[in-house]
């Protein structure tokens, strides 16, 4: 069907469809493979979300979400992560036009906002543990620390990856393979923000309402 219609179209359009041109270019394959990984990561998170949803009410006489969560902190965390995702988008544009200066600036902003998010989360966890409401207090808190902590670990890993990408682009320039790695990093960073949307809605906002 498409093959019959193709000759009538201009070459550029056929090219962008990627049909009948042999294997897809490496950038497409890499992006697709990494997308599959991200989806499997989201499936893993869905298991933690399911555990949290089942155990959310099992406080064993301890505090519940409404008594523990500080929504002002959560709003700041959300703002940090959202702006960091936006800055990462700016870095993608800079990488595509091969502008070293703006790429590094955007990556530094991304990194600082990510670190801001992590430090707020770390303080929150340290505060909870110091008050005796650590992961061993109740099933609710075990599920909470596992879910939110797992997201925090992903952000930490993302920041290490971010610093690596800055160094690689600085040392090797915008080579095709470096660009592919950066594409994967950008996808990872945006996907973390999507998971955070689920975390603040389900854990913090729904939890503080009950």
């Amino acid at each position, binding site marked *: 069907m498409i093959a019959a219609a193709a000759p009538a179209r201009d070459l550029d359009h056929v090219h*962008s*469809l990627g049909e009948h041109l042999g294997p897809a270019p*490496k950038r*497409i394959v890499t*992006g697709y493979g990494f997308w*599959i990984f991200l989806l499997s990561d989201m499936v893993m998170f869905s298991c933690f979300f399911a555990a949290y949803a089942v155990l959310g009410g099992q406080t064993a006489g301890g505090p519940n979400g409404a008594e523990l969560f500080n929504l002002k902190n959560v709003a700041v965390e959300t703002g940090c992560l959202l702006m960091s995702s936006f800055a990462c988008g700016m870095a993608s*544009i800079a990488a*595509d036009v091969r502008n070293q200066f703006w790429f590094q600036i955007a990556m530094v902003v991304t990194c600082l906002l990510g670190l801001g998010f992590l430090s707020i989360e770390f303080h929150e966890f340290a505060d909870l543990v110091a008050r005796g409401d650590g992961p061993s207090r109740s099933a609710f808190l075990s599920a909470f620390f596992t879910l939110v902590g797992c997201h925090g670990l992903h952000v930490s890993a993302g920041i290490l990856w971010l610093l690596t990408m800055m160094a690689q682009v600085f040392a090797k320039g915008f080579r095709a393979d470096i660009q592919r790695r950066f*594409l994967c990093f950008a996808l990872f960073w945006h996907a973390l923000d999507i998971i955070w949307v689920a975390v603040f809605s389900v854990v913090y906002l729904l939890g503080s309402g009950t």
Partner: protein
Amino acid sequence: MSDLELHDRADVAHGDEKEGRIGPRLLGYVTGLGLAILLTATSFFVAGTDLVWQPSIPVALVVLAIAQMGVHLVFFLHITTGPDNTNNVMALAFGILIVVLVIGGSLWIMANLNHNMRPMDQIMQMQR
């Protein structure tokens, strides 16, 4: 090598767009950011307000969260319904299926088990 690079740049992976110009791409990210901020602010407002019927709040929060995930997917990850994006969308659809099965199934089964369990004091008595 240069041929390979040309090939690379002419094709579209998700996470990029075809335009080499900065303007439209920048506009896409700014639009996404604006929508995301709007939805987040609405979520936080709805969670803390007394103005709406209380039982509707959880539903509203879930709907807002799903809408915001959609905004992130379209404007930041560039998952669209274009013809060059079919594989990504199919993978996403499968991922959503698994996520819904895991979360919905767990909640359903556990609620059912909870409902059918004897009260705790009876279980304690049986174990004596």
